[in-house]
Protein backbone atom coordinates (compact mmCIF):
# COMPACT_ATOMS: atom_id res chain seq x y z
CA UNK A 1 0.00 0.00 0.00
CA UNK A 2 1.16 3.48 -0.72
CA UNK A 3 -0.05 6.06 1.71
CA UNK A 4 2.21 8.90 0.87
CA UNK A 5 2.83 10.26 -2.54
CA UNK A 6 5.05 13.08 -3.57
CA UNK A 7 3.19 15.89 -1.84
CA UNK A 8 6.34 17.94 -1.56
CA UNK A 9 8.26 18.86 -4.68
CA UNK A 10 12.07 18.61 -4.60
CA UNK A 11 12.50 22.33 -3.91
CA UNK A 12 10.33 22.19 -0.80
CA UNK A 13 12.04 18.99 0.31
CA UNK A 14 15.46 20.62 0.02
CA UNK A 15 14.19 23.69 1.85
CA UNK A 16 12.77 21.69 4.76
CA UNK A 17 15.98 19.68 5.07
CA UNK A 18 17.82 23.00 5.23
CA UNK A 19 15.54 24.07 8.08
CA UNK A 20 16.35 20.85 9.91
CA UNK A 21 20.09 21.30 9.33
CA UNK A 22 19.94 24.84 10.72
CA UNK A 23 18.08 23.52 13.78
CA UNK A 24 20.90 21.01 14.38
CA UNK A 25 23.56 23.72 14.12
CA UNK A 26 21.61 25.92 16.54
CA UNK A 27 21.24 22.96 18.91
CA UNK A 28 25.03 22.68 19.13
CA UNK A 29 25.42 26.44 19.30
CA UNK A 30 23.02 26.55 22.25
CA UNK A 31 25.50 24.53 24.26
CA UNK A 32 27.87 27.49 24.50
CA UNK A 33 26.10 28.44 27.74
CA UNK A 34 24.02 26.39 30.17
CA UNK A 35 21.36 29.11 30.01
CA UNK A 36 20.22 28.44 26.46
CA UNK A 37 21.36 24.86 26.15
CA UNK A 38 18.02 23.20 26.88
CA UNK A 39 16.16 25.35 24.38
CA UNK A 40 18.83 24.51 21.81
CA UNK A 41 18.37 20.80 22.35
CA UNK A 42 14.60 21.11 21.94
CA UNK A 43 15.23 22.99 18.71
CA UNK A 44 17.40 20.07 17.58
CA UNK A 45 14.57 17.65 18.33
CA UNK A 46 12.21 19.90 16.37
CA UNK A 47 14.64 19.77 13.45
CA UNK A 48 14.62 15.99 13.57
CA UNK A 49 10.80 16.03 13.58
CA UNK A 50 10.69 18.34 10.55
CA UNK A 51 13.11 16.03 8.74
CA UNK A 52 11.01 12.95 9.50
CA UNK A 53 7.79 14.57 8.28
CA UNK A 54 9.65 15.66 5.17
CA UNK A 55 10.91 12.20 4.31
CA UNK A 56 7.39 10.78 4.55
CA UNK A 57 5.91 13.50 2.35
CA UNK A 58 8.61 13.83 -0.25
CA UNK A 59 8.99 10.39 -1.77
CA UNK A 60 6.80 7.49 -2.72
CA UNK A 61 7.23 5.11 0.21
CA UNK A 62 5.93 1.55 0.52
CA UNK A 63 5.62 -0.43 3.76
CA UNK A 64 4.60 2.62 5.79
CA UNK A 65 2.73 0.70 8.54
CA UNK A 66 5.82 -1.45 9.03
CA UNK A 67 8.08 1.57 9.20
CA UNK A 68 5.86 3.31 11.75
CA UNK A 69 5.72 0.16 13.86
CA UNK A 70 9.52 -0.11 13.80
CA UNK A 71 9.80 3.54 14.87
CA UNK A 72 7.37 3.01 17.73
CA UNK A 73 9.39 -0.03 18.82
CA UNK A 74 12.69 1.88 18.70
CA UNK A 75 11.29 4.79 20.66
CA UNK A 76 9.65 2.46 23.19
CA UNK A 77 12.99 0.73 23.75
CA UNK A 78 15.06 3.89 24.12
CA UNK A 79 12.89 6.51 25.82
CA UNK A 80 12.30 4.74 29.17
CA UNK A 81 16.00 3.91 29.48
CA UNK A 82 16.96 7.48 28.61
CA UNK A 83 14.53 8.78 31.19
CA UNK A 84 15.58 6.46 34.00
CA UNK A 85 19.32 6.00 33.57
CA UNK A 86 21.48 7.09 36.49
CA UNK A 87 23.81 9.97 35.76
CA UNK A 88 26.83 7.86 36.73
CA UNK A 89 25.82 5.47 33.94
CA UNK A 90 25.62 8.17 31.31
CA UNK A 91 28.83 7.07 29.52
CA UNK A 92 27.40 3.57 29.00
CA UNK A 93 24.17 4.95 27.56
CA UNK A 94 25.99 7.31 25.21
CA UNK A 95 28.11 4.37 24.07
CA UNK A 96 24.98 2.30 23.34
CA UNK A 97 23.20 5.06 21.40
CA UNK A 98 26.40 5.73 19.51
CA UNK A 99 26.76 2.06 18.61
CA UNK A 100 23.19 1.60 17.36
CA UNK A 101 23.52 4.75 15.24
CA UNK A 102 26.66 3.37 13.64
CA UNK A 103 24.96 0.03 13.09
CA UNK A 104 21.97 1.70 11.44
CA UNK A 105 24.26 3.64 9.09
CA UNK A 106 26.09 0.44 8.11
CA UNK A 107 22.80 -1.39 7.37
CA UNK A 108 21.51 1.50 5.25
CA UNK A 109 24.73 1.46 3.24
CA UNK A 110 24.50 -2.31 2.77
CA UNK A 111 20.99 -2.03 1.34
CA UNK A 112 21.93 0.83 -0.97
CA UNK A 113 24.73 -1.14 -2.60
CA UNK A 114 22.58 -2.77 -5.33
CA UNK A 115 21.44 0.72 -6.43
CA UNK A 116 24.95 2.14 -6.63
CA UNK A 117 26.30 2.00 -10.16
CA UNK A 118 28.95 4.64 -9.72
CA UNK A 119 32.40 3.68 -8.36
CA UNK A 120 32.61 6.67 -6.02
CA UNK A 121 29.23 5.86 -4.52
CA UNK A 122 30.52 2.37 -3.79
CA UNK A 123 33.58 3.88 -2.09
CA UNK A 124 31.26 5.88 0.15
CA UNK A 125 29.26 2.70 0.82
CA UNK A 126 32.23 0.56 1.90
CA UNK A 127 33.45 3.47 4.04
CA UNK A 128 30.07 3.60 5.80
CA UNK A 129 30.02 -0.18 6.18
CA UNK A 130 33.46 -0.32 7.76
CA UNK A 131 33.27 2.74 9.99
CA UNK A 132 29.68 2.03 11.06
CA UNK A 133 30.60 -1.56 11.97
CA UNK A 134 33.73 -0.44 13.87
CA UNK A 135 31.62 2.06 15.77
CA UNK A 136 28.97 -0.58 16.56
CA UNK A 137 31.39 -3.23 17.84
CA UNK A 138 33.71 -0.72 19.51
CA UNK A 139 30.80 0.89 21.36
CA UNK A 140 29.69 -2.57 22.46
CA UNK A 141 33.08 -3.25 24.04
CA UNK A 142 33.12 0.23 25.58
CA UNK A 143 29.70 -0.47 27.10
CA UNK A 144 30.89 -3.80 28.49
CA UNK A 145 33.96 -2.16 30.03
CA UNK A 146 32.00 0.71 31.57
CA UNK A 147 29.28 -1.57 32.88
CA UNK A 148 32.06 -3.79 34.19
CA UNK A 149 30.68 -6.80 32.37
CA UNK A 150 34.33 -7.43 31.52
CA UNK A 151 37.67 -6.34 32.88
CA UNK A 152 38.42 -2.63 32.64
CA UNK A 153 42.10 -3.38 32.17
CA UNK A 154 43.59 -3.43 28.69
CA UNK A 155 43.02 -6.78 27.00
CA UNK A 156 46.13 -7.73 25.06
CA UNK A 157 47.33 -11.06 23.74
CA UNK A 158 50.50 -12.07 21.98
CA UNK A 159 49.29 -12.08 18.38
CA UNK A 160 47.21 -8.91 18.65
CA UNK A 161 49.33 -6.58 16.47
CA UNK A 162 49.61 -9.30 13.80
CA UNK A 163 45.89 -10.03 13.93
CA UNK A 164 45.08 -6.32 13.74
CA UNK A 165 47.33 -5.99 10.70
CA UNK A 166 45.68 -8.99 9.06
CA UNK A 167 42.22 -7.54 9.72
CA UNK A 168 43.24 -4.21 8.21
CA UNK A 169 44.61 -5.91 5.09
CA UNK A 170 41.43 -8.01 4.88
CA UNK A 171 39.27 -4.90 5.26
CA UNK A 172 41.06 -3.02 2.49
CA UNK A 173 40.98 -6.07 0.22
CA UNK A 174 37.29 -6.80 0.76
CA UNK A 175 36.43 -3.11 0.41
CA UNK A 176 38.29 -2.87 -2.90
CA UNK A 177 36.52 -5.99 -4.13
CA UNK A 178 33.12 -4.50 -3.26
CA UNK A 179 33.94 -1.28 -5.11
CA UNK A 180 34.88 -3.26 -8.23
CA UNK A 181 32.16 -5.93 -8.20
CA UNK A 182 29.31 -4.38 -6.22
CA UNK A 183 28.64 -7.78 -4.67
CA UNK A 184 26.39 -7.78 -1.63
CA UNK A 185 27.96 -10.98 -0.31
CA UNK A 186 31.37 -9.31 -0.22
CA UNK A 187 29.78 -6.27 1.42
CA UNK A 188 28.56 -8.51 4.25
CA UNK A 189 32.17 -9.69 4.58
CA UNK A 190 33.30 -6.04 4.87
CA UNK A 191 30.71 -5.59 7.60
CA UNK A 192 32.03 -8.63 9.47
CA UNK A 193 35.64 -7.48 9.17
CA UNK A 194 34.57 -4.05 10.45
CA UNK A 195 32.97 -5.65 13.51
CA UNK A 196 36.18 -7.57 14.28
CA UNK A 197 38.25 -4.42 13.78
CA UNK A 198 35.99 -2.56 16.24
CA UNK A 199 36.52 -5.26 18.86
CA UNK A 200 40.29 -5.33 18.39
CA UNK A 201 40.52 -1.56 18.45
CA UNK A 202 38.83 -1.06 21.82
CA UNK A 203 39.84 -4.23 23.74
CA UNK A 204 43.42 -3.01 24.39
CA UNK A 205 42.24 0.36 25.74
CA UNK A 206 42.44 0.76 29.52
CA UNK A 207 39.53 1.91 31.67
CA UNK A 208 41.04 5.34 32.32
CA UNK A 209 41.18 6.11 28.62
CA UNK A 210 37.57 5.26 27.90
CA UNK A 211 36.50 8.96 27.75
CA UNK A 212 38.76 9.40 24.74
CA UNK A 213 37.44 6.27 23.04
CA UNK A 214 33.81 7.30 23.50
CA UNK A 215 34.41 10.61 21.77
CA UNK A 216 36.43 8.97 19.03
CA UNK A 217 33.67 6.45 18.29
CA UNK A 218 31.16 9.30 18.32
CA UNK A 219 33.18 10.98 15.58
CA UNK A 220 33.29 7.67 13.68
CA UNK A 221 29.50 7.32 13.69
CA UNK A 222 29.18 10.92 12.54
CA UNK A 223 31.46 10.23 9.60
CA UNK A 224 29.56 7.05 8.75
CA UNK A 225 26.29 9.00 8.71
CA UNK A 226 27.83 11.73 6.56
CA UNK A 227 29.09 9.12 4.07
CA UNK A 228 25.66 7.47 3.94
CA UNK A 229 24.29 10.93 3.15
CA UNK A 230 26.59 11.03 0.14
CA UNK A 231 25.31 7.59 -0.89
CA UNK A 232 21.65 8.59 -0.63
CA UNK A 233 22.27 12.08 -2.02
CA UNK A 234 20.71 13.49 1.15
CA UNK A 235 22.16 16.85 2.17
CA UNK A 236 20.74 16.71 5.70
CA UNK A 237 22.57 13.47 6.51
CA UNK A 238 25.78 14.93 5.11
CA UNK A 239 25.52 18.08 7.22
CA UNK A 240 24.37 16.33 10.42
CA UNK A 241 27.00 13.61 10.14
CA UNK A 242 29.77 16.10 9.47
CA UNK A 243 28.74 18.22 12.47
CA UNK A 244 28.95 15.17 14.71
CA UNK A 245 32.25 14.15 13.16
CA UNK A 246 33.65 17.59 13.92
CA UNK A 247 32.39 17.62 17.50
CA UNK A 248 33.73 14.14 18.15
CA UNK A 249 37.11 15.03 16.70
CA UNK A 250 37.41 18.20 18.78
CA UNK A 251 36.38 16.43 21.97
CA UNK A 252 38.77 13.56 21.32
CA UNK A 253 41.66 15.96 20.94
CA UNK A 254 40.64 17.98 24.00
CA UNK A 255 40.40 14.85 26.13
CA UNK A 256 43.73 13.52 24.92
CA UNK A 257 45.37 16.88 25.63
CA UNK A 258 43.78 17.00 29.10
CA UNK A 259 45.35 13.63 29.83
CA UNK A 260 48.67 14.68 28.35
CA UNK A 261 48.56 11.86 25.82
CA UNK A 262 48.26 11.49 22.10
CA UNK A 263 45.20 9.83 20.58
CA UNK A 264 47.46 7.26 18.91
CA UNK A 265 49.10 6.58 22.28
CA UNK A 266 45.69 5.81 23.79
CA UNK A 267 44.58 3.51 20.99
CA UNK A 268 47.82 1.65 20.50
CA UNK A 269 49.68 2.28 23.77
CA UNK A 270 48.87 -1.19 25.13
CA UNK A 271 50.56 -2.77 22.11
CA UNK A 272 53.82 -1.32 23.28
CA UNK A 273 53.31 -2.51 26.84
CA UNK A 274 52.87 0.95 28.35
CA UNK A 275 49.43 0.30 29.72
CA UNK A 276 47.41 2.59 31.97
CA UNK A 277 46.48 -0.11 34.45
CA UNK A 278 46.87 1.13 38.01
CA UNK A 279 49.53 -0.41 40.22
CA UNK A 280 48.46 -1.67 43.60
CA UNK A 281 51.69 -0.98 45.47
CA UNK A 282 51.17 0.77 48.80
CA UNK A 283 53.81 3.15 50.07
CA UNK A 284 55.16 3.03 53.63
CA UNK A 285 56.02 6.70 53.90
CA UNK A 286 54.43 8.64 56.75
CA UNK A 287 51.45 10.88 56.08
CA UNK A 288 49.39 13.15 58.33
CA UNK A 289 45.94 11.70 58.76
CA UNK A 290 43.16 13.48 60.50
CA UNK A 291 39.62 13.24 61.92
CA UNK A 292 36.39 14.55 60.37
CA UNK A 293 36.15 17.09 63.20
CA UNK A 294 39.58 18.56 62.41
CA UNK A 295 38.70 18.79 58.73
CA UNK A 296 35.41 20.46 59.65
CA UNK A 297 37.29 23.12 61.65
CA UNK A 298 39.64 23.76 58.74
CA UNK A 299 36.72 24.15 56.34
CA UNK A 300 34.30 25.94 58.64
CA UNK A 301 36.68 28.75 59.52
CA UNK A 302 38.16 29.18 56.05
CA UNK A 303 37.31 32.08 53.80
CA UNK A 304 37.75 30.31 50.55
CA UNK A 305 37.48 26.59 49.84
CA UNK A 306 38.02 24.90 46.48
CA UNK A 307 36.65 21.38 46.17
CA UNK A 308 38.38 19.09 43.65
CA UNK A 309 36.02 16.20 42.87
CA UNK A 310 37.30 13.07 41.16
CA UNK A 311 35.80 9.85 39.95
CA UNK A 312 36.09 8.38 43.46
CA UNK A 313 33.34 10.79 44.45
CA UNK A 314 31.06 9.54 41.71
CA UNK A 315 31.81 5.89 42.48
CA UNK A 316 30.83 6.48 46.09
CA UNK A 317 27.68 8.35 44.94
CA UNK A 318 28.96 11.18 47.15
CA UNK A 319 28.02 14.10 44.87
CA UNK A 320 24.92 14.96 46.92
CA UNK A 321 26.93 15.01 50.15
CA UNK A 322 29.54 17.21 48.46
CA UNK A 323 26.84 19.61 47.26
CA UNK A 324 25.30 19.80 50.72
CA UNK A 325 28.68 20.42 52.29
CA UNK A 326 29.24 23.27 49.83
CA UNK A 327 25.84 24.78 50.66
CA UNK A 328 26.44 24.49 54.39
CA UNK A 329 29.83 26.15 54.10
CA UNK A 330 28.40 28.92 51.93
CA UNK A 331 25.70 29.61 54.49
CA UNK A 332 28.55 30.13 56.97
CA UNK A 333 29.98 32.72 54.62
CA UNK A 334 32.70 30.53 53.14
CA UNK A 335 33.36 31.04 49.45
CA UNK A 336 33.12 27.58 47.83
CA UNK A 337 33.97 26.56 44.27
CA UNK A 338 34.32 23.24 42.50
CA UNK A 339 37.44 22.86 40.38
CA UNK A 340 36.73 20.40 37.60
CA UNK A 341 39.46 18.69 35.64
CA UNK A 342 38.39 17.94 32.05
CA UNK A 343 38.84 14.21 32.57
CA UNK A 344 37.15 13.98 35.97
CA UNK A 345 34.59 11.24 35.56
CA UNK A 346 34.27 8.71 32.79
CA UNK A 347 33.43 10.88 29.85
CA UNK A 348 34.20 14.48 28.93
CA UNK A 349 32.33 16.81 31.27
CA UNK A 350 30.86 13.94 33.28
CA UNK A 351 31.62 15.46 36.70
CA UNK A 352 29.69 18.61 35.82
CA UNK A 353 26.59 16.56 35.08
CA UNK A 354 26.91 14.64 38.33
CA UNK A 355 27.23 17.85 40.35
CA UNK A 356 24.44 19.56 38.44
CA UNK A 357 22.24 16.60 39.34
CA UNK A 358 23.09 17.30 43.00
CA UNK A 359 21.84 20.89 42.54
CA UNK A 360 25.22 22.60 42.48
CA UNK A 361 24.60 25.83 40.53
CA UNK A 362 26.66 25.88 37.35
CA UNK A 363 28.30 29.17 38.35
CA UNK A 364 30.19 27.22 41.03
CA UNK A 365 31.60 24.73 38.54
CA UNK A 366 34.96 26.07 37.43
CA UNK A 367 37.06 24.86 34.52
CA UNK A 368 40.72 24.13 35.08
CA UNK A 369 41.94 27.23 33.25
CA UNK A 370 39.58 29.52 35.20
CA UNK A 371 40.32 28.16 38.61
CA UNK A 372 44.02 27.37 38.61
CA UNK A 373 45.07 30.91 39.55
CA UNK A 374 42.58 30.87 42.45
CA UNK A 375 44.26 28.10 44.44
CA UNK A 376 46.88 30.57 45.70
CA UNK A 377 44.14 32.55 47.43
CA UNK A 378 42.35 29.46 48.72
CA UNK A 379 42.60 28.51 52.38
CA UNK A 380 41.70 24.89 51.78
CA UNK A 381 41.74 22.68 48.70
CA UNK A 382 39.48 19.69 49.45
CA UNK A 383 40.39 16.84 47.11
CA UNK A 384 37.64 14.21 47.07
CA UNK A 385 38.30 10.91 45.34
CA UNK A 386 40.83 12.43 42.96
CA UNK A 387 44.54 11.81 42.73
CA UNK A 388 46.26 11.99 39.37
CA UNK A 389 44.62 15.27 38.40
CA UNK A 390 46.40 17.06 41.28
CA UNK A 391 49.66 15.09 41.10
CA UNK A 392 52.62 17.48 40.74
CA UNK A 393 54.62 14.69 39.08
CA UNK A 394 52.85 15.79 35.88
CA UNK A 395 54.97 18.93 36.02
CA UNK A 396 58.10 17.85 37.84
CA UNK A 397 58.93 14.26 36.86
CA UNK A 398 59.77 13.95 33.16
CA UNK A 399 59.82 10.14 33.32
CA UNK A 400 56.33 9.86 34.82
CA UNK A 401 53.50 8.39 32.71
CA UNK A 402 51.41 11.48 33.40
CA UNK A 403 54.22 13.95 32.65
CA UNK A 404 52.81 16.79 30.57
CA UNK A 405 49.21 16.30 31.71
CA UNK A 406 47.73 19.63 32.81
CA UNK A 407 46.81 19.42 36.51
CA UNK A 408 44.78 21.37 39.02
CA UNK A 409 47.24 23.30 41.19
CA UNK A 410 45.71 22.18 44.48
CA UNK A 411 49.19 22.27 46.04
CA UNK A 412 49.12 26.07 45.88
CA UNK A 413 46.39 26.26 48.51
CA UNK A 414 47.37 27.01 52.11
CA UNK A 415 45.99 23.67 53.28
CA UNK A 416 45.25 20.57 51.23
CA UNK A 417 42.82 17.94 52.50
CA UNK A 418 42.55 14.62 50.71
CA UNK A 419 39.52 12.40 51.25
CA UNK A 420 40.87 9.05 50.11
CA UNK A 421 39.92 5.43 50.48
CA UNK A 422 43.50 4.27 50.91
CA UNK A 423 47.06 5.10 49.98
CA UNK A 424 46.63 3.22 46.72
CA UNK A 425 47.83 5.30 43.77
CA UNK A 426 45.32 6.41 41.14
CA UNK A 427 44.63 5.05 37.65
CA UNK A 428 48.05 6.03 36.40
CA UNK A 429 49.68 4.06 39.21
CA UNK A 430 52.07 6.80 40.30
CA UNK A 431 52.90 8.10 43.74
CA UNK A 432 51.51 11.54 44.52
CA UNK A 433 54.13 13.73 46.23
CA UNK A 434 51.41 16.12 47.33
CA UNK A 435 50.21 13.54 49.86
CA UNK A 436 53.49 13.88 51.81
CA UNK A 437 53.72 17.67 51.83
CA UNK A 438 53.57 19.47 55.21
CA UNK A 439 50.37 21.37 54.32
CA UNK A 440 48.53 18.16 53.43
CA UNK A 441 46.06 16.31 55.66
CA UNK A 442 44.42 13.00 54.82
CA UNK A 443 41.07 11.66 55.89
CA UNK A 444 40.72 7.99 55.02
CA UNK A 445 37.43 6.34 54.13
CA UNK A 446 34.70 6.07 51.52
CA UNK A 447 34.19 9.50 49.91
CA UNK A 448 30.48 9.68 50.72
CA UNK A 449 30.91 8.56 54.33
CA UNK A 450 33.79 10.95 54.94
CA UNK A 451 31.84 13.84 53.43
CA UNK A 452 28.78 13.06 55.52
CA UNK A 453 30.83 12.93 58.70
CA UNK A 454 32.62 16.18 57.85
CA UNK A 455 29.27 17.73 57.02
CA UNK A 456 27.69 16.89 60.37
CA UNK A 457 30.85 18.09 62.12
CA UNK A 458 30.64 21.41 60.25
CA UNK A 459 26.98 21.76 61.20
CA UNK A 460 27.78 21.34 64.89
CA UNK A 461 30.63 23.87 64.88
Amino acid sequence: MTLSSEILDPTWTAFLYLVAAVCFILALKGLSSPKHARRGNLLGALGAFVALVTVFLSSRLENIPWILAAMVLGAALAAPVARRVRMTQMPQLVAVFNGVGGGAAALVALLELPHAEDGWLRVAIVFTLLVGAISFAGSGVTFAKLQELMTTRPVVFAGLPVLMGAVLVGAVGAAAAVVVTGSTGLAVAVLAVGLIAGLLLVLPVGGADVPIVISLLNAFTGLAVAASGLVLGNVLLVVAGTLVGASGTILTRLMAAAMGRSVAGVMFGAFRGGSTAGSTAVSERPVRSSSPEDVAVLLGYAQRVIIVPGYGLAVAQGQHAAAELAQTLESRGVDVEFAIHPVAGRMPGHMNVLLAEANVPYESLMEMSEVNGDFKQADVALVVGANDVVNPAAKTTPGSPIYGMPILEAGDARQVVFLKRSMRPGFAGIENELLYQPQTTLLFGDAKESLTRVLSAVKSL
Partner: protein
Amino acid sequence: MGGVELLTITVLAVFVGFEVVSKVSSILHTPLMSGANAIHGIILVGAITVAGQATDGWVLAVALLAVVLATANLVGGFVVTDRMLEMFRGRATPGQGGAKGEAK
Protein backbone atom coordinates in the same frame (compact mmCIF):
# COMPACT_ATOMS: atom_id res chain seq x y z
CA MET B 1 22.45 16.65 -6.49
CA GLY B 2 25.87 16.28 -8.07
CA GLY B 3 28.96 14.98 -6.34
CA VAL B 4 30.79 18.31 -6.39
CA GLU B 5 27.88 20.14 -4.79
CA LEU B 6 27.67 17.53 -2.02
CA LEU B 7 31.42 17.79 -1.50
CA THR B 8 31.11 21.59 -1.25
CA ILE B 9 28.43 21.24 1.40
CA THR B 10 30.51 18.66 3.29
CA VAL B 11 33.54 20.92 3.41
CA LEU B 12 31.49 23.92 4.56
CA ALA B 13 29.80 21.76 7.20
CA VAL B 14 33.23 20.75 8.54
CA PHE B 15 34.07 24.40 9.11
CA VAL B 16 30.69 25.18 10.69
CA GLY B 17 31.06 22.14 12.93
CA PHE B 18 34.51 23.08 14.18
CA GLU B 19 33.46 26.70 14.65
CA VAL B 20 30.30 25.91 16.62
CA VAL B 21 31.69 23.07 18.71
CA SER B 22 34.89 24.84 19.72
CA LYS B 23 32.70 27.46 21.44
CA VAL B 24 30.87 24.89 23.56
CA SER B 25 31.40 25.43 27.28
CA SER B 26 33.50 22.64 28.75
CA ILE B 27 30.93 22.35 31.54
CA LEU B 28 28.58 20.97 28.90
CA HIS B 29 30.84 18.43 27.20
CA THR B 30 28.73 15.45 28.24
CA PRO B 31 25.48 16.97 26.92
CA LEU B 32 27.44 17.96 23.79
CA MET B 33 28.36 14.36 23.26
CA SER B 34 24.89 13.00 23.86
CA GLY B 35 23.36 15.83 21.80
CA ALA B 36 25.72 15.13 18.90
CA ASN B 37 24.81 11.49 19.39
CA ALA B 38 21.13 12.33 18.99
CA ILE B 39 21.88 14.32 15.85
CA HIS B 40 23.51 11.39 14.09
CA GLY B 41 20.34 9.47 14.82
CA ILE B 42 18.97 11.37 11.82
CA ILE B 43 20.30 8.40 9.84
CA LEU B 44 16.67 7.39 10.52
CA VAL B 45 15.77 9.46 7.45
CA GLY B 46 18.02 7.20 5.41
CA ALA B 47 16.67 4.06 7.05
CA ILE B 48 13.08 5.13 6.30
CA THR B 49 13.97 5.87 2.67
CA VAL B 50 15.53 2.44 2.22
CA ALA B 51 12.67 0.66 4.00
CA GLY B 52 10.14 2.58 1.90
CA GLN B 53 11.75 1.36 -1.31
CA ALA B 54 12.14 -2.25 -0.21
CA THR B 55 10.30 -4.80 -2.34
CA ASP B 56 12.08 -7.90 -1.11
CA GLY B 57 11.24 -9.39 2.30
CA TRP B 58 14.84 -9.67 3.43
CA VAL B 59 15.68 -6.14 2.41
CA LEU B 60 12.63 -4.89 4.29
CA ALA B 61 13.60 -6.84 7.41
CA VAL B 62 17.13 -5.44 7.45
CA ALA B 63 15.86 -1.92 6.71
CA LEU B 64 13.32 -2.15 9.52
CA LEU B 65 16.10 -3.22 11.88
CA ALA B 66 17.96 -0.08 10.82
CA VAL B 67 14.79 1.96 11.50
CA VAL B 68 14.52 0.51 15.02
CA LEU B 69 18.19 1.19 15.79
CA ALA B 70 18.13 4.70 14.36
CA THR B 71 14.92 5.63 16.18
CA ALA B 72 16.40 4.41 19.46
CA ASN B 73 19.47 6.55 18.76
CA LEU B 74 17.46 9.65 17.83
CA VAL B 75 14.73 9.56 20.47
CA GLY B 76 16.92 8.30 23.30
CA GLY B 77 19.62 10.84 22.50
CA PHE B 78 17.34 13.86 22.61
CA VAL B 79 15.48 12.66 25.72
CA VAL B 80 18.61 12.02 27.75
CA THR B 81 20.24 15.27 26.65
CA ASP B 82 17.13 17.19 27.69
CA ARG B 83 17.16 15.46 31.05
CA MET B 84 20.77 16.44 31.64
CA LEU B 85 20.38 20.04 30.54
CA GLU B 86 17.35 20.45 32.74
CA MET B 87 19.62 19.82 35.74
CA PHE B 88 21.98 22.68 34.95
CA ARG B 89 20.46 25.46 36.99
CA GLY B 90 21.88 28.83 37.82
CA ARG B 91 22.38 30.30 41.25
CA ALA B 92 19.15 32.30 40.92
CA THR B 93 16.87 29.40 41.83
CA PRO B 94 15.76 30.09 45.39
CA GLY B 95 14.92 27.44 47.92
CA GLN B 96 17.88 25.17 47.25
CA GLY B 97 20.88 27.34 47.99
CA GLY B 98 21.74 28.11 51.58
CA ALA B 99 18.38 27.13 53.02
CA LYS B 100 19.51 23.72 54.21
CA GLY B 101 22.60 24.62 56.14
CA GLU B 102 22.12 26.44 59.40
CA ALA B 103 24.73 28.99 60.35
CA LYS B 104 25.98 28.03 63.79
